[in-house]
């Protein structure tokens, strides 16, 4: 029987941090009315709308596709819109900013490092030659699409970066999402940019920063499986190191 008819509440402990006044984050407790269909995000929105308008957090779609509301919920990286208060009853629920990122304000983190890492893998199709509009669309078989489809589902929510211990230990590590997206383009039949991305892949901060803990794939809300994307490229990188790139028959030619 649902609890919508009874007056119930849950305590949310939200991380607060103001760059002008605080030297370190601290937790602030709020009592939030509970309905069993409420997401954690709705709990935060209630706080902001009725209890404390200064609580600051990112959100947008409310349906786990925009990737904005990534947070640590009881120490686990999750999308706030994709986790539900009923699973934490009787509470309290601890909501903190994503691990391994600098904190800008309350639950908002600085994504700059990730944006730079993402750009370093050239996450766009790089055909060898420009295709004229008159040539029409690219054709791709279902099998060709299968090769990269899962990796194209990334919503850049950064939960994988919060989960990955190597992101914490090695600040320059490109990280799960960036490397998964690198693989997404390398595996696309329309792309010939393998060589252009090789430098980023072959670096210590590229695929070799990963030790296959596998936590990234566990927390990914889109089942991208970045661990697989990265680790299948270690063999490629090693072969490339010994000058056996030809064996991989990569699609090359793009500048």
């Amino acid at each position: 029987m649902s609890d919508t008819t009874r007056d119930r509440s849950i305590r949310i402990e939200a991380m607060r941090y103001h760059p002008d006044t605080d030297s370190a984050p601290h937790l602030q407790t709020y009592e939030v009315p509970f309905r069993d269909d409420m997401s954690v995000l709705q709990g935060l929105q209630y706080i902001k709308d009725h209890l404390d308008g200064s609580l600051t957090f990112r959100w947008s779609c409310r349906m786990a596709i925009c990737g904005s509301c990534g947070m640590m919920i009881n120490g686990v990286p999750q999308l706030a819109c994709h986790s539900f208060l009923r699973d934490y009853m009787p509470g309290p629920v601890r909501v903190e900013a994503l691990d391994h990122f600098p904190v800008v304000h309350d639950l908002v983190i600085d994504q700059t490092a990730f944006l730079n890492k993402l750009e370093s893998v050239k996450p766009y199709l790089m055909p060898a030659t420009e295709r004229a509009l008159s040539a029409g669309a690219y054709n791709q078989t279902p099998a060709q699409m299968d090769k990269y489809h899962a990796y194209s589902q990334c919503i850049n929510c950064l939960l994988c970066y919060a989960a990955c211990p190597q992101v914490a230990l090695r600040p320059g590590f490109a990280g799960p999402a960036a490397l998964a997206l690198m693989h997404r383009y390398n595996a696309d039949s329309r792309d010939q940019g393998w060589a252009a991305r090789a430098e980023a892949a072959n670096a210590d901060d590229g695929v070799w920063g990963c030790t296959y803990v596998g936590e990234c794939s566990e927390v990914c809300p889109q089942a991208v499986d970045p661990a697989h994307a990265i680790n299948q490229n270690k063999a490629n990188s090693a072969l490339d190191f010994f000058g056996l790139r030809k064996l991989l028959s990569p699609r090359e030619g793009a500048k």
Partner: protein
Amino acid sequence: MKRSNEPITWLPFGAGGMLSALIAPVLVLVTGLLVPLGVLPRNFMSYPRMLAFAQNPLGKLLLLAVISLFLLHGCHRLVTTLHDYGLKAGHAPMALFFGAAVLASLFALVLLLRIGF
């Protein structure tokens, strides 16, 4: 970005990991448990038999492969574990441990050659 040298140690790590995944359990079971406990006849590891095994070219190969690849695999993993626990000394630990494993492998080779054919 500088290219990583990790492939130099990663390939032996992979070979050693595969070899040990395949036969480490049975080797440990036989040499460390079944024979010393007498479940298999103790003379399976007697001096004449082991000498004959080590003098056989295939036996030499197996002994060298097991000792060398287990060490190379183990050292790679050990160094990454040290890194996991916060050791920040760049590439020095890997060079040190991997170098030690290579030296131990050379020692094994020297011994195998000394034992003769």
